């Protein structure tokens, strides 16, 4: 059975080929259903693998890809606990989003092309999580970047979208350079890039050896790009230019968690590099609170969700930073459910609002879009961590683990959690409560989305509601299913405290957070479900709100310190260094030759007297030289 695992990525690839080449001939919905069926097939196979998995990792070798001297890179897959969990998330959520897209993209002229890209994305994502060595992982890594690029710029007639796509691709490539150099350093250090060969060797290294720190930092640079961490996060909010299902699938549920996956995959290396882990903690915590501070004043429904994706990614990295790998994966899982749900629900709102994304123009939608309202509520409760919804378990688990290792990070994350609750509830109440603030036309067209869209929403809502039970903490007498499942492949950094948070602390934490959440819910409801609407002009904002609304001017800063100097350098190199200096030198050699020949030509004047004079002068000069030397 397990040998058939190669079929999992093969189906979406087949789907890509069919829809890609058949986009002219296939009837619209057929293309969508073919693509969805392919992902369903992958999902079913993954389920079978999961059901029959016996705890032993299996490598499936397809062929030798690169063979150069001592460097041999097989194209092979690894099926173990981690890849199985990721497979289920990717194909499961992916399938639901495919179904949703059939409804959402129904009126788009490039419908089939959209599905071909989605299938290609699933294919690369599966390569990423199944690859048994860093090169196959990197292939998937770059491939999902390409699909993300293609899908962000899907509506290519809008040039802003194209630029957003470019930005995403190039920022990712900055991370990829780090990742690639990391892989090369791994190869040089260990002589191989296969996971099952590297990790046993890593035991021979002492803690915090420079080469291991270098490797882990380089890999982490890759993760920063893909998983949108400071300073490489600015592409993700812009990436929301793509169609909403893309935002849900790629820029929330799956691709952006690739960085987390990669670190968990390399946990053996990270555990012997506590220095890198502490850097990850700092970056993750900073990203979490910074993006939450931006989200709190945004008025575009997708932008709020975009920053609310960057922020939990920061949470996950902090979890990684304190060595709580399985907790990070737990949050990846629950986050995939509720964030896909929120994005798709937002898509349903946008669909109903005839393309409007500004929450200032919404309001009072709960009666008009009852299903969307309900699922959005579940999604919101799940993300803010209200019991018993998904993030209640996963977020509290992260907080409890961080408390033991790092108090500063704990405080940062706790503040972030409060901010998250505030901005998510603000979004929720502004959208669904109060009175409708849009145009008359929009109100007239307002409608609930079709079945193909609401069904996936309902499924995701159920998953968001119960997803947390994968990891019921011991304090409730539960068994942490996910932890136990992942246990065999994880290591714990020995430099860290090896203790669990006391049960009393966990209970206090939960009680405090629930009380706080209730207060915030009441507060935001009073503030945002009435007449209060976020202001439209800078002049009416407080100075913090102004900075926050303009994303702390980070884009402008990057433009000023990186893009413009490079542009300038490019011009200087071309117009001055290349044309004037280097080519000028070449030309002056030429001119010197021509010039001197022109001058020396006059010596050959035909005047015999001058020749004799020159000859005598020459002889004397030679004699003179001989004398003095």
């Amino acid at each position, binding site marked *: 059975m397990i040998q058939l695992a190669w079929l999992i990525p093969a189906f979406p690839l087949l789907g890509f080929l069919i829809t890609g080449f058949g986009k002219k001939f296939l009837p619209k919905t057929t293309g969508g259903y073919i693509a969805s069926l392919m992902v369903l097939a992958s999902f079913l196979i993954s389920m079978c693998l999961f059901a029959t998995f016996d705890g032993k990792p299996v490598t499936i070798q397809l062929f030798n890809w690169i063979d150069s001297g001592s460097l041999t890179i097989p194209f092979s897959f690894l099926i173990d606990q981690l890849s199985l969990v990721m497979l289920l998330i990717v194909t499961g959520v992916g399938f639901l989003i495919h179904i949703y897209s059939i409804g959402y993209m129904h009126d788009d002229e490039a419908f089939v092309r959209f599905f071909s890209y989605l299938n290609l994305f699933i294919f690369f994502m599966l390569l990423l999580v199944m690859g048994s060595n860093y090169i196959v992982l990197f292939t998937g890594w770059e491939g999902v970047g390409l699909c993300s690029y293609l899908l962000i710029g899907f509506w290519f007639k809008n040039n802003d979208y194209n630029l957003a796509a470019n930005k995403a691709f190039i920022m990712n490539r900055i991370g*990829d350079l780090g990742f690639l150099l990391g892989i090369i350093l791994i190869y040089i250090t260990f002589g191989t890039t296969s996971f099952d060969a590297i990790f046993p060797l890593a035991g021979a290294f002492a803690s915090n050896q420079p080469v291991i720190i270098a490797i882990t930092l380089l890999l982490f640079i890759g993760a920063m790009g893909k998983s949108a961490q400071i300073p490489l996060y600015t592409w993700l909010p812009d990436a929301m230019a793509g169609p909403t299902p893309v935002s849900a699938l790629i820029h929330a549920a799956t691709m952006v968690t690739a960085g987390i996956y990669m670190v968990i995959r390399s946990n053996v290396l990270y555990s012997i590099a506590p220095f890198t882990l502490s850097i990850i903690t700092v970056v993750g915590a900073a990203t979490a609170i910074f993006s939450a501070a931006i989200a709190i004043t945004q008025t575009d429904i997708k932008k709020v969700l975009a920053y609310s994706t960057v922020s939990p990614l920061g949470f996950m990295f902090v979890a990684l930073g304190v060595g709580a790998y399985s907790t990070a994966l737990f949050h990846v899982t629950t986050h995939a459910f509720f964030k896909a749900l929120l994005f798709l629900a937002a898509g349903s709102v946008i669909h109903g609002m005839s393309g409007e994304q500004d929450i200032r123009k919404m309001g009072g939608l709960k009666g008009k879009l009852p299903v969307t309202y309900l699922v959005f509520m579940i999604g919101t409760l799940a993300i803010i961590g209200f019991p018993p919804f998904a993030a209640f378990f996963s977020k509290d688990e992260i907080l409890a683990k961080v408390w033991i290792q790092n108090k500063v990070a704990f405080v940062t994350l706790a503040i972030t959690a409060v901010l998250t609750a505030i901005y998510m509830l603000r979004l929720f109440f502004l959208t669904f409560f109060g009175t409708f603030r849009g145009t008359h036309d929009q109100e007239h067209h307002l409608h609930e989305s079709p079945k193909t869209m609401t069904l996936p929403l309902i499924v995701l809502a159920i998953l968001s509601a119960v997803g947390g039970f994968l990891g019921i903490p011991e304090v409730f007498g539960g068994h942490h299913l996910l932890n136990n499942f992942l246990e065999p492949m994880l290591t714990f950094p020995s430099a860290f405290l090896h203790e669990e948070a006391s049960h009393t602390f966990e209970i206090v934490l939960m009680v405090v957070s629930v009380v706080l959440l209730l207060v915030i819910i009441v507060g935001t409801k009073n503030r945002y479900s009435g007449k209060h609407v976020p202001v439209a002009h800078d002049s009416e904002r407080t100075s913090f709100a102004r900075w926050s609304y303009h994303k702390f001017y980070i884009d402008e800063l990057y433009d000023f310190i990186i893009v413009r100097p490079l542009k300038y350098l490019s011009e200087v190199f071309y117009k001055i260094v290349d044309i004037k200096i280097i080519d000028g030198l070449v030309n002056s050699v030429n001119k010197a030759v021509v010039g001197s020949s022109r001058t020396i030509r006059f010596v050959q004047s035909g005047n015999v007297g001058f020749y004799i004079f020159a000859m005598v002068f020459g002889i004397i000069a030679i004699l003179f030289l001989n004398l003095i030397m």
Partner: protein
Amino acid sequence: MLSVLIFLPLLAAIVVAFSGANAKKVALIASVIEFAYSVCFYVRFTPTGGTQFLHSQSWIPQLGISFKVGMDGISLLLVMLTTFLVPLIITASFRREYKSPGLFYGLIMMMQFALIGVFVSLDAFLFYIFWELALIPIYLICLMWGGQDRLKITLKFFIYTLAGSLLMLVALIYLWMQTPGTHTFDLQAFYSLHLSSGQQSWLFWMLFLAFAIKMPIFPFHTWQPDTYTDAPAPGTMLLSGIMLKMGVYGLLRWLLPVVPQGVEEWGMTAMILSVIGIVYASLIAWSQKDFKRLIAYSSIAHVGLISAGVFSLTMQGMQGSVIQMLVHGINVVGLFFICDMIEQRTGTRQMEQLGGLRTTAPVFSTYFMIIMLASVALPLTNGFVGEFLLINGVFQYNQLLAAFAGLTIILGAGICLTPIVKLLLALRVQRHTISPRLSFPKKPFSFRSSS
């Protein structure tokens, strides 16, 4: 017979030259036959067998010159690249009407003759003859069918590369004088010379300059953008697709094994120049407005990485450079073909004047995108394996240099995405439009003005 493979294009050149209006068809048939014949060599080649198909015949015995040819893996690969690309280049020019086609296509075949000769010669004198012979047809092609500034530009190109070649000639004659007995130009004899490190040091520079100018490596590259931009499309393809590989091939066959100590002494300098070239040319390419010139500069960057791989002197770097020569040949010819198609149908290569091609020519755009992604070296495209091996090789040599060389990953993406947005996607300027079908109009396309 390897000699047949070498001389068949020469024969074809003569026939083509006298076939008048049918020249391109005759040339195409001849080059396809040549390709088919080269496939036979590929089939009969034993991968582990070293130099094969050896043929040696005394030519000028007094000077120790012989007609000695043979192929090992690298030669075979480059010969295959040549025989594969020439029919494509001829096909790519099929819709163009060049004046005096007999001469034009005859020169292309002549070029093929010289290129194959370069890649199979095992005698220094023979190598030199072919090396210079390759310059003449391409010079004439650029001179007679080039753009507006062709006189000045081609003269510079000719003199610049000839100057490099002369240095090489001096070096080869010096090496010949060092051979024992009655002197010989045989490559094997050169390999077994025992030269002092002082001799190797200046021989290195004589040879390196010749190859560096040909490739070209920074800062010997200034002839290249002008010549590439000004040459007719088939000329540019020949120059970039095949001819610059002569330089890399020269490094691998005539520089590294002949003066190993010289390489040891000066390799770092060559490496640094190559890496500077990558970053420098990429940055310049970024701000180019002429699409053809943009490709020309990005080609300098790619070649910089290839030569950095060669000078890393590692297994991975060398193998990467050989793979990348092949891949770069295919990709760059594809890019110049795309550029020529756009120019033919819209009358301009200025990216500011173009846009929205994806709407009117979706199939063309898809291929454009694929070739672009290959030149960015995305995994699963042809460019990835070579680039990975190259950066790997450089990394083993020096980690800091590898980080700089690796910038090509970022800069390359920037270079390729800019024209994609400007040519394919952006609709903001629509001064010229492209006809929706991929076939070429017979007559030059008439422009439609937006204002």
